[in-house]
């Protein structure tokens, strides 16, 4: 059976002295001085984010001023008045929930009763919590009373949303802005609380809680409470991670790295695992933002205490932080902010996360990042195209020098370059086919995949420079790719010729920019391609294991080098194996 009332940590540990109100020294000091000097104002307004101690401070002040030992800086919490206020038996201290008593009538009621002298204590204290919920009429009804209350009355208004309070109210109160509590201060308080209980909590887990609770002490204690309930014995970092639905730093690093490298596939995979584990996409975006923020902080001010804290004992973070380029980080944060906004209202938050990965990778790969070295990325593309241009110029120069001969001198730079010779098409086709056959030995499925996923972008780039060229390209698709060559299969011979002769440079340039590799283009007719492919597979069969790389056939029926080779070439999904 449940005993009478287990109380949440944040209720048990509600501060009872001003000194215990953590992280608000600027306020507690002022209040303490005012209490000692008996110079308390008649109206206070406490504002600040949730869980920073507004209501607690109000309660403490109400006790301290009525304490039998007054004037004192802190309530004694022992005398009958203090205890009476604590348990609510002294009605002179009234805590009013403005959210449920927000009408003019309730305020009128206060106004009428204000006149009467306090019954047990020295002062009547009205604590009006959530005061932003008062209606306009109620606020206005309060104005006069708030300005000139009887001597024995003190008002303390508390709210998280000061912008909703009329200026006329604010100007009649002494306003105290409670700050978010720093992680450091929260850690100290939590340690204090834990010292008084017999629970063990890992230090990392505590700092994780402090970070996750975003400056709200109550949030921190709620989380701590939850973690203690969740954990089997001692509270570990993993326990906290699974409660707040956050991801481990490793996964975060992994995602950042794959985005930076432009690896869409890896990024998406990471997100899939994330979702399968039931993590919250919103939380993840936030974690990413904070991660980048930390990176910036460490970069901009490595001497800062917080930076040093962050860096100690986290070698992996140090490594990642050093690799990242500041401009890139800014760009990412911008994007993350954008998606975070959109995500809040969406019922498919995961999609936004995926969009982020795709778009973020996009930026990187199209700019051609060289793994974050602080080179100005913008210029990379230009450099590549300039290099191409120089090559072109060189080749045409040499062409001119060599007279009307069609051979190209640039072959030195690009030995495998094809020569658009005016040969009869059948002969040309044969030559093409031969070349393709040769390159197949070095072709891999992975190369093809990289090329295919960038193909749409290649077409776009070509289109920017020449619309007709992109039109000719519509008919073809990449079918094989090695480290220095790729093959385009065309359905139509004319298209093949046009692309192969007129637009070769354009296409090759676009490919180079997109996949970051200097590739030469080979062209082939789709029909021929089928033949070549078959012939190649057959050849592999007769050659037997000589050319197979001993790659173990995976889940498939038999260990057949031919199939292996074919798989290597086109991927398993396109193969149909017949006995």
């Amino acid at each position: 059976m449940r005993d009478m009332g287990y109380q949440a940590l944040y209720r048990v540990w509600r501060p009872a002295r001003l000194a215990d109100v953590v992280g608000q020294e600027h306020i507690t000091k002022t209040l303490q001085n005012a209490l000692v000097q008996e110079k308390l104002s008649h109206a206070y307004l406490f504002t600040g984010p949730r869980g920073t101690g507004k209501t607690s401070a109000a309660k403490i002040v109400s006790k301290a001023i009525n304490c039998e030992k007054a004037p004192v800086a802190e309530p004694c919490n022992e005398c009958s008045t203090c205890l009476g206020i604590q348990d609510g038996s002294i009605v002179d201290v009234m805590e009013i929930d403005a959210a449920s008593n927000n009408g003019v009538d309730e305020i009128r009621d206060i106004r009428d009763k204000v006149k009467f002298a306090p019954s047990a204590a020295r002062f009547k204290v009205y604590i009006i919590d959530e005061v932003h919920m008062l209606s306009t009429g109620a606020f206005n009804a309060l104005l006069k009373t708030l300005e000139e209350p009887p001597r024995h009355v003190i008002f303390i208004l508390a709210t998280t949303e000061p912008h909703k309070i009329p200026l006329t109210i604010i100007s009649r109160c002494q306003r105290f802005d409670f700050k978010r509590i720093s992680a450091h201060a929260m850690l100290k308080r939590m340690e204090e609380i834990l010292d008084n209980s017999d629970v063990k909590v890992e230090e990392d887990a505590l700092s994780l809680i402090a970070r996750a609770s975003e400056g709200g002490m109550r949030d921190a204690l709620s989380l701590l409470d939850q973690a203690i309930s969740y954990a089997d014995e001692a509270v570990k970092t993993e326990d906290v991670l699974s409660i707040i639905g956050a991801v481990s730093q490793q996964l975060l690093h992994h995602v950042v790295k794959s985005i930076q490298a432009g690896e869409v596939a890896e990024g998406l995979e990471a997100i899939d695992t994330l979702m399968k584990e039931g993590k919250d996409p919103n939380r993840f975006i936030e974690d990413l933002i904070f991660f980048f923020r930390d990176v910036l902080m460490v970069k901009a001010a490595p001497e800062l205490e917080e930076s040093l804290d962050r860096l100690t004992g986290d070698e992996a973070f140090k490594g990642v932080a050093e690799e990242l380029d500041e401009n890139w980080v800014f760009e990412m944060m911008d994007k993350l902010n954008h998606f975070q906004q959109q995500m809040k209202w969406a019922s498919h938050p995961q999609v936004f996360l995926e969009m982020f990965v795709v778009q973020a990778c996009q930026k990187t790969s199209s700019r051609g990042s060289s793994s974050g070295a602080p080179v100005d990325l913008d210029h990379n593309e230009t450099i590549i195209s300039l290099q191409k241009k120089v090559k072109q110029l060189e080749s045409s120069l040499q062409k001119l020098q060599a007279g009307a001969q069609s051979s190209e001198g640039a072959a030195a730079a690009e030995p495998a370059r094809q020569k658009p010779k005016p040969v009869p098409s059948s002969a040309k086709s044969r030559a093409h086919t031969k070349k393709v056959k040769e390159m197949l030995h070095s072709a891999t499925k992975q190369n093809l995949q990289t090329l295919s996923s960038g193909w749409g972008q290649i077409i776009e780039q070509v289109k920017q420079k020449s619309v007709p060229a992109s039109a000719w390209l519509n008919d073809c698709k990449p079918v094989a790719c090695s480290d220095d060559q790729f093959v385009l299969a065309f359905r139509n011979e004319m298209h093949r010729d046009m692309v192969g002769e007129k637009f070769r440079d354009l296409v090759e340039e676009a490919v180079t920019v997109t996949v970051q590799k200097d590739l030469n283009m080979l062209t082939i007719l789709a029909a021929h391609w089928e033949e070549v492919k078959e012939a190649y597979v057959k050849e592999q069969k007769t050659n037997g294991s000589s050319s197979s790389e001993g790659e173990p056939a995976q889940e498939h029926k038999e260990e057949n080098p031919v199939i292996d080779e074919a798989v290597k070439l086109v991927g398993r999904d396109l193969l149909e194996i017949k006995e």
Partner: protein
Amino acid sequence: MKNWEQLEQTQPAIVKMLTNSVEKNRLAHAYLFTGGRGTGKKEAALLLAKTFFCAHRQGAEPCQTCRECKRIDSGNHPDVHIIQTDGASIKVEQIRNLKKEFSLRGVESHKKFYIVQDAEKMTDPAANSLLKFLEEPEGEALAVLLTVQIHKILKTIISRSQVLQFAPLPADLLIKKLTEQGIHEKYARTVSKMTNDLEEALQLCQEDWIAQARNKVIQLIDDLSMRPRYAFITLQEEWLPFFKEKTEVQLGIDLLMLWYRDVIRMQVDQTDQIVYIDQEDKLQDHALKLSQEKLGNNLQAVMDAKRRLDANTAPQLLMEQLLLRLQEG
């Protein structure tokens, strides 16, 4: 009704959290259950209520047979209150009544339990007037708020409660369950991406609705890529008469979104994630022709349309604008 052990299969972390709290006698006074539809929030809340009241529970497991358990099952327990939306929202009157109810002693025990369903639908005054009550309830009370969108909940409420994030059901499990019910895999896959709830999924599959909807989407996409001018006619003649209600339009847009996601997955060669498994050729074709940047823009366009629909834009205008944006890429 499920017990903790059964619930543990789908929500291990949640169950561990709650049962441990019960066993350690550290049950908080306010919980906020958040997570997608059909993840078992309400089941967990009711189960918690039973554990809370059951006279013969063993460990954390309620007996399910005593008077208390049975009455919670049938919704007749006098000390268990469930607040639901009154019309479109939860009004401040309802919270006031609740508070009044709580200022009285429990009918049979001194304990009370309340569940606020769709907590994000609380009006601003309602949410604010719950604050003080949530923080320091009179007597022994336990509150469970259920929500699908935690971002619509006041920060001040979140900080007063223990937040439990319910994991979405693994899609594989849902697909398996659906195929067991005799639904074709391609439809099961599609539906599993649109909802997490088995009941809702089955409803979508009724009378082949999902099959038809899928065909409409594929047709629209086809027109869009091959004969852009016909797309608007298709929209007018096929799409709009089929997706009539707002919720249906919503689903239609979801289906479009899934298509573009598939194209991206195709591009990066993660074919096991694909939803439109019978359309691989077309997806491949699209994957080859569209750059990732364009795909990103397309997805963005679809998501924008979805958001506008929530803001009550006329479906026809919305869809036409979407088509124009998709053509631009």
